[in-house]
Structure formats: structure tokens, C-alpha cells
């Protein structure tokens, strides 16, 4: 950048700022947002970094030297990365399979398959891993009872991969379904019209056009897999250590906060790299920006034979998903899950007695955090795409940075940052709400941005032009139009707030406890049936909440929207 451009940039910034001065409310909102993001996203991360770099009060790379010098930690790092890559590939492949089958064929049972492709987003931690063991373990329903395998090694990479692919493929599915729908069918029609066979049309047209979406799904799954905590804690075993669990154990098992912080920083590296690649490379290569309505997809994309093959493959995965949830359901109603399956209400009685408080707390936290996250996400998306002010890109970047930060790192950051006056938040609901809020803003931002790109900017300009200030425009025009995006953002952050564990486990207290942490402690204490019952309640609450959100939004905005979830 030459001096001239710097001067011009400076000039522009000054002009933008001057204009902001004339919209004081907007200025206040932006300043407040910056303040909140700095406090709740950057500051905790900075604390993690400083604690790991100043272990004895003076700057030293000692901790990093020690950790990286350990064979075990290096192995954990490699395992995390390998796991991330395999999960990304496997999950994206299955996600694409579902997305393609559901948008490009006319097989029967689509609604059931769609359900199976979305349901695993609601995956109660630990209990999912237990269900995997019950299905595929030494004594597993599938491995032992159906296949007659003895000593099928579920611990380590194989079991973990299975669990993670199952848990994360829906994310890839949702991304790729969006891409395939926005591609419409006319391009494939055109290719076949020009003489391409179905396979050629797929290989030469559909697949290349989906590549940016696929790359994006790969990277997102990589990040999710690296950050995953519940599955590897149970399925990893010490033979297959992964970093996210090591961070947790370093702090809780070894009482080594600085060491945990250093590990957290190491864990952050591959994650942030994937995030940056996704953001600045892949998203630029996107051929299709979401722009119009989805056109009707072709259903001639696959020959009848291939259609049935796809149906069979999807059906198998779906069966698997349903079996998985059935296993949990059975556990919730069994006297002793895995040993004595006499039906009983005992587990629910116990859970509703002991866990009532946790259920209430979880609901309070989730119900507070997710609308705020959804709303803030829309607001930031709006500001980032439709308003100009100095630091706009920084605002956007910081606010979605947390997506790349594994939960354990955030958890450590929060206890480091907020355990001292005047920022004494540990033990309060505030810290839990803030954690979920800033953790799941990115979801809101992403869906908000996608939604905004579908709305002609002139519509908002028309409102300002007619005398509506920026906040009024946002509230009266943008937000109602973003209802579908808002809905999916809201649902996603609600689901995550209800099921997340990795950060929350550092932040709960006697006053404020969460269902997921209860599931962990019930599992730890050996009440597996109670853990399963908690999980079933969790799933039911989420499903009920999705219905309620839909109802409320529909009433509130009197606007017809397409449901993107469920």
C-alpha cells in the first residue's frame, strides 16, 4: 500500500467516523459491541497466552519446550490433527451423500432421511459415546450380537472416528444441501442437453461447482473434530490421546493451569489455520453466492440404479442414526443400561428429583443466551455487510474468531479472565451466558450474512432514505426479513448451548449447573441410566424449544418463512 492509499484510507476513515457522529445510537452500538467482543473474546484468549508465556512471572517458553518435548503430547497433537482430517473427510462424504440424494433424486422416505441427517446435531455428550460402545464395543449389539465379532477394539481411532463422523456429518450436510439447492438444476440440465452423460454432468459440472462448499465443510468439520471433547474423553483412551482432552486433564487432573494454557495455545494453532484458510481462501473461491430462490432441482441427475444405490447408502446411515438414538432411549428406561433392560421410570424419577435444578439452570442459560446470540449475530452481520465504519473487518473477524477456538481453550480463558475483581464472574450465571453467547454468535453471523446476501440492499436503503435511522431500519426492515436466517441461527445456538460441555465444564458452579455437566457427573458416578434419561430429556427439551421458537417468530413477525431446520 502506497502512501497515497494510506492517506486515502485515513481520509475515508475520518469521513466514516464523522458520519457516525451524526448517528450517535449507531456509534454507541458499535462501541459497545467492540467493548464486549474485546472483553469476552480477545481478553480471555490473551490471558491464556500470557499465562502460558509467563509461567513464573517472567517471560519464558519453558512450558512449550516441556510439552513439545514430551512424546505423549506430540502424539496427542498428531492424533488430533489426523482425527480432524479423517473426520472431515468421512463426515463431508456422508454429508454430501445425503445432500445429493435428498436434492437430486426422487427416492421414497425423504423426510425420514432428512430427519436422520439432522438429528445427530442434538448429540448429548458422553452418552453418545456410551451408546457407541454399546453398539460397537466388545459386547456391542452390532459387533457381537449381529456380526459375532470378538474383541472388536472400539477404543482409539476407530471408535472415535465412528462417533465423530456420526456426530458431525449433519454440519456438512446442511452446508452442502444449501450449495446444491442454490446451484439449481438448470446447469446440470444444460450439461446433459449438451450431450453429457449423467456421470459426466456430475463429475464435470455438479462436483466442481460444489468444491468450494465441500472445502468449506471439510474445514469446519476439521475444526469441530479437533475441539470435540466428550467423545475422545470416553473413546480415546490413553493409547490414543488427543489434545482437547489433554488440556482438560492438565488443568483438572494435574492442577497445572499454565501447562493447560500452553496446551490450549498449541491446540489453537491447527484450528485457527483451518479457520483462516476457510475464511480467506475458500470463501473467496465460491462460485455461487447465495442469490435467488432455490430453483427446483433436477431429479434426473442419477439413473434409477444409482438412485437405489444412493438410497441404500443413506438408508444404512439413517438406520444407524436411529439405532443410536434408540439405544439411548432404551438406556433411559432400563434398570441397568447394558445389563438389565427391565423397563422402569426410576431413572426419570431420579433425574427429575436430583436434576430439576440443573434442568432449570440450563434452560435459563440457554433461553437467555441463544436469542441474544441470534440477535447480536444478526446485528453484527448487518453492520459488517451493510454499514461502513473504521474497524468493520476487525469487528467481523473477532466476532467469528471464537468459532475456531476449541471450547476447552475458551473455558480456561474465562476462568483466567473472570476470577478476579472487578471482573469476578466465576460461579455466576453471567459467565455461562457470556460464554455461550460469544461462542455461538458466529453461527448467527454466518446465517445472518447468508440471509442478508439474499436481500436487495436497496430495500434497506429505501428505509433509510425514507427517514429510518440505522437501528430503526435494522429492527423494522432487516430483522423481519432475516427471520428464516435468524431462526436457523437461533435453533443452532440453542442446540449448542444445551449440548455443549467443553467450555462449560470449567464454568459451572453449585449455584449454576448444567444438564451436560450433570450427564458427565452421572456417568462418572456410575448412574448410566440417569445419564441416558438426562440425555432423553435434553433431546425432548430441544425439540420442544425448536417448535416454540418457530411459533414465536411466526407470530412476532407475521412473516412467512421457510423452516431450515427440522
Amino acid at each position: 500500500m502506497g502512501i497515497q492509499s494510506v492517506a486515502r484510507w485515513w481520509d475515508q476513515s475520518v469521513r466514516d467516523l464523522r458520519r457516525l457522529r451524526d448517528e450517535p445510537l449507531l456509534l454507541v452500538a458499535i462501541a459497545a459491541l467492540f467493548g464486549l467482543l474485546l472483553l469476552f473474546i480477545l481478553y480471555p484468549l490473551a490471558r491464556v497466552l500470557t499465562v502460558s508465556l509467563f509461567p513464573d512471572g517472567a517471560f519464558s517458553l519453558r512450558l512449550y519446550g516441556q510439552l513439545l518435548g514430551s512424546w505423549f503430547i506430540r502424539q496427542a497433537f498428531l492424533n488430533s490433527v489426523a482425527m480432524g482430517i479423517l473426520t472431515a473427510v468421512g463426515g463431508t462424504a456422508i454429508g454430501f451423500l445425503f445432500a445429493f440424494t435428498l436434492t437430486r433424486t426422487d427416492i421414497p422416505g425423504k423426510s425420514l432421511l432428512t430427519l436422520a441427517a439432522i438429528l445427530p446435531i442434538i448429540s448429548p455428550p458422553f452418552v453418545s459415546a456410551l451408546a457407541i460402545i454399546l453398539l460397537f464395543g466388545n459386547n456391542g449389539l452390532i459387533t457381537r450380537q449381529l456380526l459375532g465379532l470378538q474383541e472388536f477394539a472400539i477404543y482409539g481411532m476407530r471408535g472415535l472416528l465412528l462417533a465423530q463422523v456420526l456426530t458431525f456429518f449433519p454440519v456438512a450436510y446442511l452446508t452442502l444441501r444449501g450449495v446444491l439447492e442454490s446451484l439449481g438444476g438448470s446447469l446440470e440440465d444444460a450439461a446433459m442437453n449438451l450431450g453429457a452423460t449423467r456421470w459426466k454432468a456430475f463429475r464435470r459440472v455438479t462436483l466442481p461447482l460444489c468444491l468450494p462448499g465441500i472445502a468449506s465443510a471439510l474445514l469446519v468439520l476439521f475444526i469441530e473434530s479437533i475441539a470435540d471433547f466428550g467423545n475422545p474423553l470416553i473413546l480415546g483412551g490413553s493409547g490414543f490421546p488427543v489434545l482437547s482432552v489433554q488440556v482438560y486433564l492438565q488443568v483438572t487432573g494435574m492442577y497445572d493451569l499454565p501447562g493447560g494454557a500452553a496446551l490450549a495455545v498449541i491446540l489453537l494453532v491447527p484450528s485457527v489455520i483451518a479457520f483462516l484458510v476457510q475464511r480467506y481462501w475458500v470463501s473467496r473461491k465460491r462460485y455461487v453466492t447465495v442469490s435467488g430462490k432455490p430453483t427446483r432441482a433436477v431429479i434426473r441427475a442419477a439413473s434409477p440404479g444409482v438412485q437405489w444405490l444412493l438410497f441404500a447408502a443413506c438408508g444404512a446411515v439413517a438406520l444407524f442414526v436411529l439405532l443410536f438414538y434408540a439405544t439411548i432411549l432404551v438406556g433411559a428406561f432400563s434398570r441397568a443400561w447394558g445389563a438389565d433392560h427391565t423397563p422402569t421410570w426410576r431413572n426419570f424419577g431420579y433425574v427429575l428429583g436430583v436434576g430439576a435444578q440443573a434442568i432449570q439452570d440450563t434452560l435459563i442459560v440457554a433461553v437467555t443466551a441463544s436469542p441474544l446470540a441470534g440477535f447480536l449475530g444478526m446485528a453484527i452481520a448487518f453492520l459488517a455487510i451493510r454499514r461502513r465504519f473504521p474497524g468493520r473487518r476487525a469487528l467481523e473477524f473477532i466476532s467469528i474468531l471464537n468459532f475456531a477456538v476449541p471450547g476447552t481453550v475458551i473455558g480456561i480463558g474465562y476462568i483466567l479472565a473472570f476470577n478476579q475483581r472487578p471482573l469476578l464472574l466465576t460461579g455466576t450465571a453471567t459467565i455461562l451466558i457470556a460464554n455461550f453467547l460469544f461462542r455461538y454468535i458466529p453461527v448467527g453471523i454466518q446465517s445472518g450474512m447468508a440471509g442478508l446476501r439474499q436481500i436487495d440492499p436497496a430495500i434497506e436503503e429505501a428505509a433509510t432514505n425514507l427517514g429510518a435511522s440505522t437501528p430503526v431500519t435494522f429492527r423494522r426492515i432487516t430483522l423481519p426479513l432475516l427471520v428464516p436466517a435468524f431462526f436457523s441461527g437461533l435453533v443452532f445456538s440453542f442446540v449448542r448451548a444445551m449440548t455443549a460441555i467443553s467450555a462449560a465444564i470449567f464454568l459451572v458452579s453449585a449455584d449454576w449447573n448444567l444438564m451436560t455437566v450433570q450427564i458427565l457427573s452421572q456417568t462418572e458416578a456410575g448412574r448410566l441410566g440417569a445419564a441416558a434419561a438426562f440425555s432423553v430429556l435434553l433431546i425432548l427439551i430441544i425439540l420442544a424449544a425448536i417448535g416454540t421458537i418457530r411459533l414465536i417468530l411466526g407470530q412476532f413477525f407475521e412473516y412467512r418463512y421457510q423452516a431450515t431446520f427440522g
Partner: protein
Amino acid sequence: MSVVLENVTKVFEDGQRPGGHVRAVDGVSLEVSDGELVTLLGPSGCGKTTALRIIAGFETPTAGRVLIDGQDVSRLPPHARNTAMVFQSYAIFPHLTVSQNVAFGLQMRGASKDEIASRVQAILELVGLAGLQHRSPEQLSGGQQQRVALARAIITEPRVLLFDEPLSNLDAKLREQMRGEVRKLQRRLAITSLYVTHDQAEAMALSDRIIVMNAGRVQQAGAPLEIYARPANRFVADFIGRVNFLHGQVREVGPDRIRLDVRGRSLEVPVQRADLRVGAVASLLVRPETIRLAPVQGTGPGTFVGTVRRVTYLGPTAEYEIDWDGTPLLAVSGSPLEHGLLSEGARVAFDFPAATVHLLPHAPDGTG
């Protein structure tokens, strides 16, 4: 209420080249007087829409000032400017009904419910939408949507009405009809208006004055007839209507006539500019419809002779492409029903009234 742009420049970052910049608007000054309808006319990318958006406040100028009614509004946010824009895409709020759309601006100004109701009613009648109050936008035809956009803009009695190619999404017939209605409405309400279009016919039909822009700069401003008859440069001549360029050498410069030598023939045209000296080469702009054609019956002085290469019959007119010793010429003749068509390959004599010829200094690069 007048609108003035003073030396306004807008530089955008070039998304394609990192560090690159594009001057969308380059030192533009213009004025729209009270009650006047001025059109900004130019090809796409000429900066006309950016200029309009700067007036509305959607873009901040990199340099220069915007004055509305003498007040510097350069730093005012869009919602405080009291300009009203009619958008190319109409930008009707899809989640609001017709009357909610129209009422929006009044609500923003805090008008009372009763006032809003009566004014919405009045304005909908004015634009011919009475009875459609409760329709939702997607139930309206393109023309009706256009009227909603118009009603929504004028109901606030804005200081300036801004049109951003409002008719370009309509089919040809409807466009002509709406064009007339817009003009009528604007006259009746006497709202100062700036109208952006790339359609020169629309500009001609609507405007009190036209400002032609290209590459971010004003090329010429003037009444439609003046711009058509005396384009300031080759770009304007070419962009507005169609034109033949002939070359001639200045032989004599008189007080009110210039004599030129065009392909060995002498031609006298009225003096329009003082910068032509004897011996200079000038471009002669000859509008196709001014060329009179006649089948050759011997060669007389004052006429040129060429060959008809191609005939395009358009109903009310016919277009002839004429090869004039290697130079192609376009001529348009009216009412073929009355005069009959020439046939391709025919030798033809042609002529044009010297008074309609416009002179420009010759510039081989075509920029005038």
C-alpha cells in the same frame, strides 16, 4: 429547493486489484434548480448512479460537497436528508402491505395515525392504486409495484426526488406509459428531481435538462434539443442518437459561416465554435434522419453519390447503409409507405441541410 454538487469525487477500492482504486465520480459539479427535472444520462459504469447515491447519502464523497437548498448535507446520514429515492428494483418492503409500504416514511416522521391514513389514501388515488391497500407486494404487477415505489417516495414531500433507472424493469409499452405519468406527476407536484437512466429516449422525453456523463465526468449539460443538435464532443454525439462522422477541411472562416471542403465539395455551415482555423480538419456530425436520398438521375452540384448496401425496413422508417466511396453512411428516411423503398445495390444521390450539420475539431482517437 435546489441540489448542487460541488466538485464531487468518489474513489472506490478496486476489489480485483489489491491496492487499486477506481474513480467512479471524478470532480463532478452540477445543479438542479427548484422544481426542475434533470436527467443524468450515460452508459453503465459512468458514475451516474454513484452521483445519485452520494446525494441520497448512501455513499460519502471522497472529496467535494453536496448542497440541498443551500445547506451542506455532505455529512448528514441518509435518513436525515429528506430525499426520496425510487429504486431500480423498486425495493418494496416485501413483508409489508401496499399501504404499510407507503405509510413508512410518514411513520418515520412521527405523523399521526389519522394523518397517515388520509394521506396514504390520497396518494394511492393519485398514482392509481386505490383499492389495493391491503395487497402484499408479491400480488402486484410490475407496473403496480412501480407505482407503490413512487407513492412511497412522494408521500413524504421530499426536498428532492431521486430516480435510479426506475423504469428499466418494465416492458417497452409500460415503460413509455409510466414515463409520461412520472413526468406529469413531477410537474404537478413541482418536486426537484434528479433522474438517472442510460436510455437516451427516456431522458429526452422526461427532462428539462440532460447531463451526459462518461467515465466519472460530466460531458455536457443542456436542454434535450441542444444536446442532440450540438453535442459537445464525439462521445455525446455518439451516445445520444446515431450519427455519421464526415471529415472536412476548413477553407474559410466568415463571421457567421464556415466553408469547408468535404471530399472535393464545398459546404457552408453556420459558425458554432471559434476554435476552428483555416486549414484545420473538422469532424462534421450528420444525423441519419437529416440525410435526404434520391435515386441518381445524373450528377448535379451539391449532392453526393453512393451505393445502397443494405436496407432495413422498420415500419415507420427505413434505414439505409450507404457506401460512399468506401465510407459507410447511415441514413434514415421516413414513411416508406409513402415514398417506397430503395433497393440494395442501387446508386443513390444524397444531401443534407448544412444548417443541421454540427462541427467538432477532428480527433482521430474518437474522444472528440
